[in-house]
């Protein structure tokens, strides 16, 4: 459990400390652009409207007073909810997402909204309508995406945890790129009420932090059935392993090639696990190489439906100076307000749902989805967890020198499998190569989040979480790290 009265529990209660922390946050954020909005006072006001549960818990709640950041596609009352889109640049959320409400009930305070690829579509945060974010480990590299702002904020020590959403890897990949932990819970374990929908059957709200105990506390606060989200379920933790040795399945990577640094980290991770006494077992996931196609067909199809509501009529930016009919107004508003990647995915999704094309694309993708789900069930009958890389390459360069959008999509191969099967997964820091973090991930059977977190804790015994040189250090009162010289 986190110690009460640590820096983070009290930073917002002491005005001088808050001011010092906030000014450090703004200074660092000028370099990494993790945030789209920073406003602790607004967060505190939202908290005041949240009833805290009656009945005292023993001791101080570890989440009491903790500031946290929220990806800007998750609603926090009074804050903007831009989803990284120009179409929603002035939209103010009238309500808070269930997960945010639950965290506020525990005393945590949302202090800002983080940058993201527009509507969650992307793996770099370069698709944001408001400028990209930068990796605190190397400002010429991307922090990953789509929850790049959240991961960057946490890696830079600006907040102890941040919320993100994971549709095809969007919590785990940026966490891996930024050298921190990223948990994607089981589908349905966490309410999606208040998450702006991109792909409703794939996405889950997740949490990013440098500390496993923080993730544990946050997840425990967020999870559980919500009458406002009928895809949410009552949480029932998967069975514990009861003292026997952890068995981790390792799939053959087949034709998927890893960049040298990632291959090195992949090998070191397996070695590290063996050192810890973990049993590694080869498993088969034959559908893996077809998964990216199936994933994108489903994600784009669902996106085309979910984003149809953004028409500039009831909310959002309307095309200015227009005098035609509403239908034309909708077309223009969407065309002017939405970015290229979003348009591409809407077009693809619309196409694969067209009558005449549904069978060969959408239906086929759903059948491939059944195949991967069955393969995971089969695999988990013989192993406790599965180990996989997170991304085939290290954090890539910003701009045209980096990975092009098509290559980025193909690289979702390791992360999208958990979303297709609805399984929990966590990415963890595994190596530092040339000063860039490389992460790996564990996947688990449904509701095995605690098993995932414990595996991370054990692995941290051989490879601890690295310290980002740029980061603020909470133990130095929120000031800059003595090593930060940028």
């Amino acid at each position, binding site marked *: 459990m986190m110690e009460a009265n640590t820096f983070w529990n009290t930073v917002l209660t002491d005005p001088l400390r808050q001011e010092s922390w906030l000014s450090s946050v703004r200074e660092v954020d000028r370099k990494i652009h993790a945030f789209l909005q920073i406003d602790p006072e607004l967060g505190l006001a939202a908290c005041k409207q949240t009833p805290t549960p009656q009945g005292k818990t023993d001791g101080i709640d570890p989440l009491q007073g903790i500031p946290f950041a929220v990806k800007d596609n998750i609603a926090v009352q009074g804050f903007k909810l831009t989803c990284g889109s120009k179409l929603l640049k002035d939209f103010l959320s009238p309500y808070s997402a269930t997960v945010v409400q639950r965290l506020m009930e525990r005393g945590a305070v949302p202090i800002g909204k983080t940058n993201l690829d527009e509507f969650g579509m992307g793996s770099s945060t370069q698709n944001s309508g408001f400028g990209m974010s930068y990796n605190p480990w190397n400002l010429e590299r991307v922090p990953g995406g789509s929850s790049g702002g959240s991961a960057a904020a946490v890696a830079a020590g600006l907040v102890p945890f941040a919320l993100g959403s994971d549709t095809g890897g969007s919590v785990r990949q940026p966490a891996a790129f930024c050298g921190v932990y990223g948990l994607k819970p089981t589908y349905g374990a966490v309410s999606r009420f208040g998450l702006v929908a991109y792909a409703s059957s794939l996405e889950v709200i997740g949490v990013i932090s440098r500390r496993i105990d923080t993730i544990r506390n946050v997840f425990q606060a967020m999870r559980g059935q919500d009458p406002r989200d009928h895809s949410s379920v009552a949480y029932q933790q998967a069975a514990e392993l009861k003292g026997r040795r952890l068995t981790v399945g390792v799939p053959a990577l087949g034709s998927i090639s890893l960049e040298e640094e990632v291959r090195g980290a992949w090998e070191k991770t397996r070695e590290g696990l063996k050192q810890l006494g973990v049993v590694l077992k080869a498993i088969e996931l034959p559908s893996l190489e077809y998964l990216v196609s199936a994933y994108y067909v489903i994600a784009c199809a669902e996106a085309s439906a979910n984003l149809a509501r953004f028409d500039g009529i*009831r909310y959002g930016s*309307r095309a200015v100076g227009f005098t035609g009919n509403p239908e034309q107004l909708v077309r223009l508003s969407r065309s002017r307000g939405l970015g290229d990647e979003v348009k591409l995915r809407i077009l693809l999704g619309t196409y694969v749902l067209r009558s005449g094309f549904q069978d060969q694309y959408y239906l086929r993708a759903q*059948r491939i989805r059944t*195949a991967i789900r069955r393969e995971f069930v089969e695999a988990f009958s013989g192993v406790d967890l599965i180990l996989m890389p997170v991304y085939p390459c290290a954090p890539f360069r910003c701009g045209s020198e980096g990975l092009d959008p098509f290559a980025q999509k193909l690289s979702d191969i390791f992360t999208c499998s958990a979303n297709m099967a609805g399984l929990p997964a966590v990415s963890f820091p595994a190596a530092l190569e040339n000063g860039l973090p490389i992460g790996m991930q564990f996947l688990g059977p449904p509701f095995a989040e605690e098993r995932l977190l414990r595996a991370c804790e054990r692995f941290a015994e051989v490879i601890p979480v690295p310290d980002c040189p740029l980061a603020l250090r909470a133990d130095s009162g929120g000031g800059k790290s003595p090593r930060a010289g940028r």
Partner: protein
Amino acid sequence: MGCIDSMEREELDTTAQLARLELSEEETRRFEQAVFQMLEYFSKMREFDVEGLPPTAQLKQNNTTRADRTSEQQDSASILNNAPELEDRFIVIPNVL
């Protein structure tokens, strides 16, 4: 990339219509390439034998209902304030006819 034949261009135009997107000539050229690159990649799925596999449309298998109860909603002002153009409590849109 070679020239896109007119049939495919028509498909893209129809799709854009359905998606309520208006693409400029330049955008159409750019998106043509990207869309057809992805569709070509999707065709890889044809190699997969889907015989006997039912489709997974959603992950939750059982239906959930809630009690049919009314509850008080928050003030509508905060919702209406996001409208691009308001007149009293009405959202203004161009004439439909």
